C-alpha cells in the first residue's frame, strides 16, 4: 500500500517485512508463480489430451501427412534457449545497475522471440519454403494435425504475448518507470514459455517421431 493511500485511510504506511514462509519474494512474484502454475495446467491438459489421442490412433501419421521438421524446430528451440539466457542476463544487468546493457539484452530477447514467431509462421504457412498446411497437415483432418496446431498455436500465442510484454517493459525501463523487480517478473513469464516449449518439443515433435510419425 502506498503511503498516500495509507494516509488517506488515516494510518501510517506499514513496513512489510520478509515473510517467514516466502522470504523476500514479493506478492507480485508469488502471484506470477501462481499464474504460471495455472498456465502449466493448461499446457499439461493439452499434452495429456494429445497422449490419449496418440495412444488410440495407430498409425499416428495419416497417409499423405508430412513429417515434422525436427531439424528446423531444433533451431527454433536453440533460439528460444538463447532468449531465456539474454532475458536473465538482462535482469542481472538491471540488478547490477548496468541499465544500458539491460535494455540492449531485453531488445535482443524481444528480437529472438520475434524470430521464433517468424519460424513458426514458416513452419505452418510457409514463407521461403512450403509450410505444413500446404504439405497436407490440415487442422481437423486428423488427431495428429489438430493437436499439433492447437498445442504449437497455444504456445505461439504465449510467445506473441511475451514479445509484447518484453517491449512494454523495455519502453518502461528506458523511461525509468520500470525496476529490476518488473524485469524479474517478466523473466518468470518468458522463461516459462521456454519451460513449456521443452515439453512441447519432446511430446509433439520428438517422441512421435520415434514411431515414424
Amino acid at each position: 500500500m502506498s503511503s498516500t493511500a495509507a494516509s488517506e485511510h488515516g494510518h501510517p504506511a506499514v513496513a512489510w517485512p520478509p515473510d517467514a514462509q516466502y522470504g523476500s519474494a514479493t506478492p507480485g512474484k508469488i502471484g506470477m508463480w501462481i499464474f504460471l502454475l495455472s498456465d502449466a495446467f493448461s499446457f499439461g491438459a493439452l499434452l495429456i489430451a494429445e497422449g490419449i489421442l496418440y495412444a488410440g490412433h495407430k498409425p499416428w501419421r495419416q497417409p499423405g501427412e508430412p513429417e515434422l521438421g525436427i531439424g528446423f524446430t531444433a533451431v527454433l528451440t536453440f533460439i528460444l534457449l538463447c532468449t531465456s539466457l539474454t532475458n536473465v542476463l538482462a535482469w542481472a544487468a538491471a540488478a547490477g545497475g548496468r541499465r544500458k546493457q539491460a535494455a540492449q539484452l531485453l531488445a535482443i530477447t524481444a528480437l529472438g522471440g520475434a524470430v521464433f514467431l517468424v519460424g513458426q509462421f514458416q513452419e505452418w504457412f510457409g514463407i521461403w519454403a512450403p509450410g505444413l498446411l500446404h504439405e497436407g497437415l490440415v487442422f481437423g483432418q486428423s488427431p495428429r494435425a489438430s493437436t499439433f496446431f492447437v498445442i504449437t498455436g497455444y504456445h505461439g500465442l504465449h510467445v506473441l504475448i511475451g514479445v509484447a510484454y518484453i517491449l512494454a517493459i523495455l519502453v518502461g525501463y528506458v523511461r525509468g518507470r520500470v525496476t529490476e523487480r518488473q524485469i524479474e517478473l517478466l523473466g518468470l513469464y518468458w522463461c516459462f514459455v521456454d519451460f513449456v516449449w521443452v515439453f512441447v518439443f519432446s511430446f509433439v515433435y520428438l517422441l512421435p517421431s520415434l514411431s515414424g510419425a
Partner: protein
Amino acid sequence: MTDPEIGRARASSVGHVPAARERAPYLVAFAVLVALTLVEIGVVKSGGIPHRAAVVALIAIATAKAALIALFYMHLRYETRILKLTVLAPLVAPAVYGLLLMLDAAWRHMR
C-alpha cells in the same frame, strides 16, 4: 531490519542475492541446455536405440531441461522451500497422471 532495508529487500526480491547476479551459472546452464537438446536430437536421429529406452531418455532429458530452466533462469533455487513446494507440488499430480497414461499405452501395445 529498518524500513529502507525491508523496502530494498522486497523491491529487489532475489536481486539482493549476490550469487543470483553472477553470469557464470546462467552461462553454464545454457551450455548444458544446448548439450541436452543435441542429445535429444541424437536419440531421435540415431535410430539404433531401443524404442523404450529412447522414450525414457527423451522424457528424462526434457524433465532435466525444465528443471534447469526453473531452478536457474526462473531463480527457483534462490527461493524458500515453501515457495518451491507451492510451485512444484501441484505439478506432481499431472506428471504422475501422464506417466500412468504412458504406461497404460505401453501395456496395451504389448497385448
